């Protein structure tokens, strides 16, 4: 039998304020298992501003500084500089942000930190919209998905911003995508990020039952289907060019199976689904090619 590698130690407690079936809450619990106790967080406005708990409570056993929406990376850079000056090189400084704070309002500070290669770990838990403010589209929202600002009659036409490519273009030493449905893989990637000096970027797909209009018990299934349909492939990129695909489905699951169980895609026609399938197929082919170039 395969030996489980996820540490038993918990750095997140019960009593947090996440919704039932929240992918972001599980993501934090798993990430902390990889990060360990010597970790400090900069968290901008996002679901986690609330999930952690209201003042004076906290569900994390590590220090956390709530910071302004667009400042996760810059705040973390400052913390890292302080840790270096105080001789605490052993502390992991983590910027922990949602997709809005990463893809949209926080991208400038993130790009700055990545270009400087500041020694921080940036983890984006991606629930594909502004969920904390009540489901408004972000640039991470997939095309055709319903949100309160992309009503069915006024859909999002453009694809999800390819932030992984943008981060790879910064030639940072390590970036990876992960899914909460693959906890071993997720924790392994977090540990790898800890072991590397420079800017590390982790992008984790985190289903959101209220925002995706799905049942809480479907969260893991959705996070798994996102990978198996190749909508959200799991891969790593070293130095911006060496791609390694971690999960290659022999026969990718048709996107219909993923889309049809989510209320946010309920209005999609067969043509819409074919269009998504075509886009996903092309992206997957492109990724396979990239992995061939310098990969293993």
């Amino acid at each position, binding site marked *: 039998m395969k030996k489980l590698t996820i540490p038993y130690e918990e750095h997140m407690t019960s009593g947090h304020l996440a919704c039932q079936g929240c992918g972001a809450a599980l993501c934090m619990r798993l990430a902390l298992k990889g990060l360990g106790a010597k970790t400090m967080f900069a968290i901008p406005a996002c679901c986690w501003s609330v999930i952690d708990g209201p003042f004076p409570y906290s569900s994390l056993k590590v*220090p956390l500084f709530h*910071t302004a929406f667009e400042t996760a990376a810059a705040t973390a850079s400052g913390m890292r500089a302080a840790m270096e000056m105080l001789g605490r090189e052993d502390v992991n400084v983590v910027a922990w942000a949602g997709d809005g704070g990463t893809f949209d309002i926080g991208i400038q500070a993130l790009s700055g930190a990545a270009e400087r290669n500041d020694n921080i770990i940036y983890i984006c838990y991606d629930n594909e919209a502004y969920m904390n403010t009540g489901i408004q589209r972000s640039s991470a929202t997939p095309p055709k998905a319903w949100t309160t600002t992309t009503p069915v009659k006024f859909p999002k036409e453009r694809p999800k911003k390819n932030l992984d490519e943008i981060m790879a273009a910064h030639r940072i030493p390590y970036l990876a995508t992960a899914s909460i449905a693959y906890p071993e893989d997720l924790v392994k990637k977090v540990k790898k990020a800890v072991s590397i000096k420079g800017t590390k970027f982790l992008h984790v797909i985190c289903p959101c039952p209220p925002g995706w209009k799905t049942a809480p018990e479907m969260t893991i299934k959705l996070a798994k289907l996102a990978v198996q349909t190749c909508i959200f492939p799991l891969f790593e990129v070293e130095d911006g060019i060496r791609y390694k695909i971690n999960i290659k489905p022999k026969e990718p699951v048709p996107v219909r199976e993923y889309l049809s169980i989510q209320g946010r895609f309920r209005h999609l026609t067969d043509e819409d689904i074919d269009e998504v399938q075509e886009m996903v197929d092309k992206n997957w082919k492109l990724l396979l090619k990239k992995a061939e170039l310098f990969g293993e």
Partner: protein
Amino acid sequence: MRKVLMGNHALSEGAVLSRVQVIAAYPITPQTQVVELLSEKCADGTLNAKFVKVESEHSAMAACIGASAAGARAFTATSAQGLALMHEVLHWAVGARLPIVMGNINRAMAPPWTIWTDQTDSLAQRDTGWMQVYCQNNQEVLDAVILSYKVSEQVLLPTMIVLDAFFLSHTYEVVEMPLQDKVDKYLPPYNNPYRMDVDDPHTFGGLTGPDWYFELRYNIEQAMEEAKDVWKKEGALYGEYFGRKYDLVDAYRCEDAEVIFVAVATVASTARVVVDEMRKEGKKVGLLRLFVFRPFPYEDVRSALGNAKKVVVMDRNISFGAGGIFYQEVKSAMYGMKNEPVIFGIVSGLGGRDITPSHIREMIEYAYKHDEPEKDIIWMGVKV
């Protein structure tokens, strides 16, 4: 030891002597030399600090916030548009009670593009909860950095040190350099008991409802009130250490003055000459310079102006629709006092227009010629 320094380098040298640990900054004219020199000092090892070369002023302040929250002494400098861009995070530094010190070179706001001085940029940040000091010469700039850390780290509020663009930032003056070991005795290392610490983990700034937020704001105001005494105490102690004493305000020949001119920054040092000249002519004129503007030194202003018949407040700034900001604040400080003086509010020198001794004389003479101000905003030197 004495050095000839430009105002901007006086800021940098003050930061070096204060042993700042993290600097995060972004270039903007006329501030740039402040961080250029610090960058060189970090590179050659004169200063043991991390310099984070951020991509914007917003990130500069955010990085200072992260550094200060994690226990390092943090410094930045900016000007005008850069300060305005920081606005959101200026509030953040105060709410998080972080004793960051920042230099701001007073530059007028665009559009149209301009790089010359006025005070609207710093005064637009008046209500963020940053302490503000306005400097009249380069010695004061250097001393203010050391003094600001000493005060800020006691009351846990940040301080903005304000310099006039060019009139101070780019003017070279002789500056007495305090000895490092003496500065080290005066200013001990930053040791914030509320810092982020993996060995004693806490959450900072978590969601706070109406049951708690109000008290946190009350505490900030209490700290501001306390800061007045701390500025006085530390300003006097600075005098004992280094021979230059500082107070909240600088009252010059005010005791028996009939007319007192109120100004901040370099205009105040020009006005001192005018006061002396007019005294020679037999006119009982005085000068009140505000050094610390936030916290506002109500008691000191009242006691300096309380016996005057007339007060002339000069503003190199404007709050559109309301007038000069120092004028409003001085008026509010004097309101309801017995024998309240007549107060004249003059707006002049916006966008770096020269304010010469003859202009200041004209402002003071206006008060002699009028029993009451003709209007709320008296414009002087405007070509209309």
